[in-house]
């Protein structure tokens, strides 16, 4: 597979480290989080495989084009709208979570408007970028940030206060039946491959999704899931980990660099994840934007005439983002995210159905 494909998956995984996903998992830490995580690895890999093989059949084409070619119109419109709303919500969740985190930990005096505004300003630039450029940006920023991320991981695992006994206690909870919410949350980590919906447009070369790629994705996913779940447990202990609002931030706050210019790792961590979150929001909203654009569009757009649709869509995004960020409290946000994650299986099935329909449509032609 193309290396950009892995980047897309990786970004999705890393972003969920600091978002609400660990918290949802910890809610079920003594009710079957671990078996559902194991199940989620399987389901996520299967899903990744399905998406990747499907899009490899149609190099250089995004889902909107495929749908327009090979399926009835009403079906295409419904699917496009549903998908764009979903992607928008995924980006919105990251945005709101990060705004809360930044407001809490980095700049408590700053107005929440300003934080959201600064985010949305750059994100809307990212939305309007060319799809190819988005990929290049992802690559450069990931490569810039990767050493820091690895450093933080090493720092976490090699830390003397990292309590492996707590990790073992958490691992003992394997004998519970899996739980729906924790299962869907854990599968969300593997959802990065869905981003191909739009990004497949730039993958014009025929490529193969071999078992090696599947293995790579699986290993990365397992490592990230392990880190995501067990590092906060190692720092915070098993019993009361449920009560922390942002377990990962608290975990990183217990690390310090003795000789560093910046003593507390939490700030480096936060700035690093600020970048990653920005990328994730850009990816999600970029896709949502293009899907919505295709949904609204009636016929082929003429190049010359000025078209206000993209700007209208962005204004819509902005307004919804501001409203949602101001309205939601952390508790509500957490509840809504759980609902969103629980709806993911429907998303799964719908997408698979779409693939089926498109495949049949393409064959009948």
């Amino acid at each position, binding site marked *: 597979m*193309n*290396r*950009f494909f892995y980047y897309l998956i990786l970004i999705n995984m890393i972003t969920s480290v600091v978002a609400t996903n660990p918290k949802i998992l910890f809610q079920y830490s003594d009710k079957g989080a671990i078996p559902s995580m194991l199940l989620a690895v399987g389901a996520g890999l299967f899903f990744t495989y399905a998406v990747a093989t499907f899009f490899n059949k149609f190099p250089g084409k995004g889902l909107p084009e495929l749908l327009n070619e090979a399926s009835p119109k009403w079906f295409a419109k419904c699917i496009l709208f549903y998908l764009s709303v979903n992607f928008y919500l995924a980006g919105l969740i990251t945005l709101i979570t990060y705004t809360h985190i*930044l407001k809490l930990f*980095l*700049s408590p005096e*700053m107005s929440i408007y*300003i*934080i959201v505004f*600064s*985010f949305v*300003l*750059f994100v809307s*630039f*990212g939305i309007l*970028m*060319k799809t*190819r*450029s988005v*990929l*290049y*940006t992802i*690559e*450069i*920023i990931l*490569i810039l940030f990767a050493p820091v991320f690895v450093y933080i991981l090493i720092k976490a695992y090699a830390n003397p206060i990292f309590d492996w006994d707590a990790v073992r206690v958490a691992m003992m909870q394997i004998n519970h039946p899996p739980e729906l919410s924790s299962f869907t949350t854990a599968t969300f980590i593997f959802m990065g491959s869905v981003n191909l919906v739009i990004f497949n447009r*730039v*993958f*014009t*070369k025929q490529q193969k999704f071999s078992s090696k790629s599947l293995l790579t994705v699986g290993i990365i996913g397992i490592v990230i899931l392990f880190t995501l779940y067990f590092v906060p447990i190692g720092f915070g202990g098993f019993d009361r980990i449920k009560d922390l609002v942002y377990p990962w931030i608290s975990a990183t706050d217990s690390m310090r660099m003795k000789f*560093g*210019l*910046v*003593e*507390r790792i939490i*700030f480096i961590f936060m*700035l690093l994840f*600020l*970048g990653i979150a*920005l990328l994730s929001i850009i990816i999600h909203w970029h896709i949502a934007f293009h899907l919505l654009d295709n949904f609204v569009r009636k016929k082929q757009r003429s190049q010359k005439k000025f078209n206000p649709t993209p700007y209208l869509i962005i204004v819509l995004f902005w307004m919804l983002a501001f409203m949602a960020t101001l309205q939601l409290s952390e508790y509500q946000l957490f509840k809504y995210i759980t609902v969103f994650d629980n709806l993911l299986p429907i998303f799964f099935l719908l997408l698979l159905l779409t693939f089926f329909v498109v495949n049949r449509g393409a064959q009948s032609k």
Partner: protein
Amino acid sequence: MLPGLYVAFTSYNPEILRIELALSVAGSRIGVPYPSFIEVILMLIFIEFLTEASIRLPKAVSATATTVGGLILGTALTEAALASNVMIIIVALVAIATFIIPVNEMSFAIRIGRTSLLIFATLFGLIGLTLGFLGSIMYLTNKESFGETYLRIYWKNQKQELKGTTK
């Protein structure tokens, strides 16, 4: 990036730096009458004047200009508490860093970029600085000349890759 960092640290998040450094930075700003970003902007304009002047003046005079500007004015500024010591260091570093850049036209671009980063840091603090940095990367990757992007990473250095696998 340094001027932006200075603004972000002094006016938004002094607690990020370790305590000794934060104290020494804050200590050197005692008596400076205006907010840090005005200080930074003033000093940056001053250093730009200085570099431009030293380019244009004849050789014999330009040494005098830099001495008067750099040494005497710098010392006087800190003693009159119009700018902090750390600020002078930063400005000097910025000046040296601009001389590193090999192409003169590129240093103009860097100048603009520096100012925009400074503005973002002033408006949004450390968040703005990081986002501004990422934003400049985004801007550069989005810019194209003759269909090739300004900024991208060539991975394997294969012929294929140079032609562009993802077109």
